């Protein structure tokens, strides 16, 4: 866990939180076998929100955001994403997945495909876009994450930071309305963390709705409009970043913050 200072000025003109609800989670519970991993989660995310989720290891952060695009199944309660409720109905799951992008800790690029093919695969096969069009879109997003010159290489030839930026571009090619990040920088060296965070900040500046599990508290302070603290499968505390860091309410939050911020 590191605290990288964000030294750039952030353009907040497009960072607006609207009244429209993007994600609505009510009374959600999840078990792994007998292990109660998520307990009574209630949470509303409005369009344009940038939420950072933090908490100790094993607190259920990954599980929570993986429930939002149904990589994990919940057993109780309701998750509604962009007006579509997640049930075992495959149609709904497909609809939600086509609107929600996800970036993983270990990038999960497809090693047998070039960077460009990684980015065009889903648009061509899921969205049925013509190849030419998909490639143009892919190049656009690769330029945005600043690696268009790598388009014809394979993931194995790129650095970790570059791979993660490709992973972000790959998600963006599906034109998602919500982006989920699960510790996108925790497998990276400090240099590379910065390039990935920069990409994420640019995304936030364009008004993307984002849920980030991360321990980059500099990022949380600069970009997030809300920080959620989880422990033992529960949302313990949530607040806007300034309040959250300066004036934590619960003892568990205080302990956690003192541990990761080192004071």
């Amino acid at each position, binding site marked *: 866990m590191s605290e990288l200072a964000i030294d750039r000025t952030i353009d907040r003109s497009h960072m607006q939180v609207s009244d429209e609800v993007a994600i609505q989670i009510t009374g959600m519970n999840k078990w792994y076998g007998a292990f109660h991993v998520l307990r009574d989660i209630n949470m509303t995310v409005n369009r344009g929100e940038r939420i950072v989720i933090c908490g100790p290891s094993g607190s259920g952060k990954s599980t929570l955001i993986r429930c939002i*695009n149904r*990589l994990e199944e919940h057993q109780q309660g309701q998750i509604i994403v962009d007006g579509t409720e997640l049930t075992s109905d*495959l149609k709904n799951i*497909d609809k939600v*997945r*086509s609107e*929600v*992008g*996800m970036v*993983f800790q*270990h*990038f*999960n*690029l*497809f*090693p*047998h495909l070039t960077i460009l093919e990684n980015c065009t*695969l*889903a648009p061509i*096969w*899921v969205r049925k876009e013509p190849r030419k069009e998909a490639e143009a879109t892919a190049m656009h997003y690769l330029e945005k994450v600043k690696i268009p010159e790598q388009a014809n290489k*394979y993931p*194995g*030839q790129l650095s970790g930071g570059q791979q993660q930026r490709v992973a972000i571009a*790959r*998600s963006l090619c*599906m034109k998602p309305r919500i982006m989920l990040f699960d510790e996108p920088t925790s497998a990276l060296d400090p240099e590379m963390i910065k390039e990935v965070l920069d990409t994420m900040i640019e995304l936030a500046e364009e008004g993307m709705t984002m849920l980030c599990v991360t321990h980059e508290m500099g990022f949380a302070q600069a970009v997030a409009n809300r920080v959620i603290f989880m422990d033992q499968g529960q949302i313990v505390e949530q607040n806007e970043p300034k309040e959250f860091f300066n004036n934590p309410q619960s003892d568990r939050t205080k302990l956690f913050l003192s541990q990761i911020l080192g004071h």
Partner: protein
Amino acid sequence: MSGTKANSASFVRDTMLSEQDPPITERGVVKWARENLFSGPLNTFLTIIGAVAIYIILKGLAPWLLHSVWNANSAAECREIIAAAYGEGAHGACWGVVRERWAQFLYGFYPSEHYWRVNLTFILLFVALAPILFANLPRKMLWFSVIYPAVALLLLWGGSVWVPVAALAGFALGWLAYRFALPVTGSLAATVAAVLVPIIWWLFFAGWFAGLAHGILPLGMEQVPSSKFGGFLLSLTIGVTGIAFSLPLGVVLALGRQSDMFLVKTLSVGFIEFIRGVPLITLLFTASLLLNYFLPPGTNFDIILRVIIMVTLFSAAYIAEVVRGGLAALPRGQYEAADALGLDYWKAQQLIIMPQALKISIPGIVSSFIGLFKDTTLVIFVGLLDPLKGITDAIRGSFEWKGIYWEPFLFPALIFFLICFGMSRYSMYLENKLKRDHR
């Protein structure tokens, strides 16, 4: 360092020494031998043992090979020639048997005036395989690969042109059924239709159609019954067909074994474990004897076809396990990324999972193929003439070649080796070509 500065140095060598070779002990064969053969007491000991073994083998084999006779028409003639040339009691290889009987090794008892049909089938096999083996060839060539089985069926067995046409028509009907059912009934029902329609066609209408068409337009070739097949013609027919069908079946079984659906999973596991637990010969006996009890009397179910089915099922069970190993080697993240991008199960399998899992499994799959191809010699046990024992026994049973032993084994062994070695080299080529991690 600039030119003027160099002069200020206290010592500068101005005549360069000529290049020298390293000392003899550090160079070429001597260095190699020291490092690889005599690097320590154990290594030296093993080298000597190895050299002695090679000497003993060569001492036995060399005279036999050096006394080879090519131009002889019987075993007795061979022995006379060797005795005349190298003295009474000398041993020598008699390759005359290969010279005289090579056709039998290759074609079995296929009528010789029809050898061209076999040859043509063999040449066309390469045309059909080329676009599958080498991705840089034009994709249009795959159309020939698709109709090749029908062409081969017609060329090898002969009979009416309409039989393979009727067989192919089944696939076309299946495709049509899928196309027309898809918009009306959805993908599951369309898939079922695509499977059922061809089966119904083959079972009830194909024969009738072929007969009718042949009545109107009798086109065809002279029939050659399966009993005339033998040698490498038989091995390759069974081997190539078995290989072509066991890979897709193996992939399906591997996926079935991983399925969440209880019935699919149980059937796949049961099938794989049963087949792997039973010797291939048992399955071949089942094919040749038992099926007769179950099939309605009077059904004419070709013995080669039955053997092909059994060999395919046998190999598919092994390939399923090899592919399962490849699937297990893929990180969970690959499945999750595919899911998160909205790819459905089949697209994820086709585009993400299988290309990687199969690539990992190439060595194992090719091993299974090589095993399958060599196992085709087991058809001797159901009365078919395999190149190794079937044909060899037939030759040794003949009057001229009585008493000949090794030569008729070595010739098919050589051909087996060439084919299997070819497969193994191709697998290495493919692995290299698909290498993507340039680490």
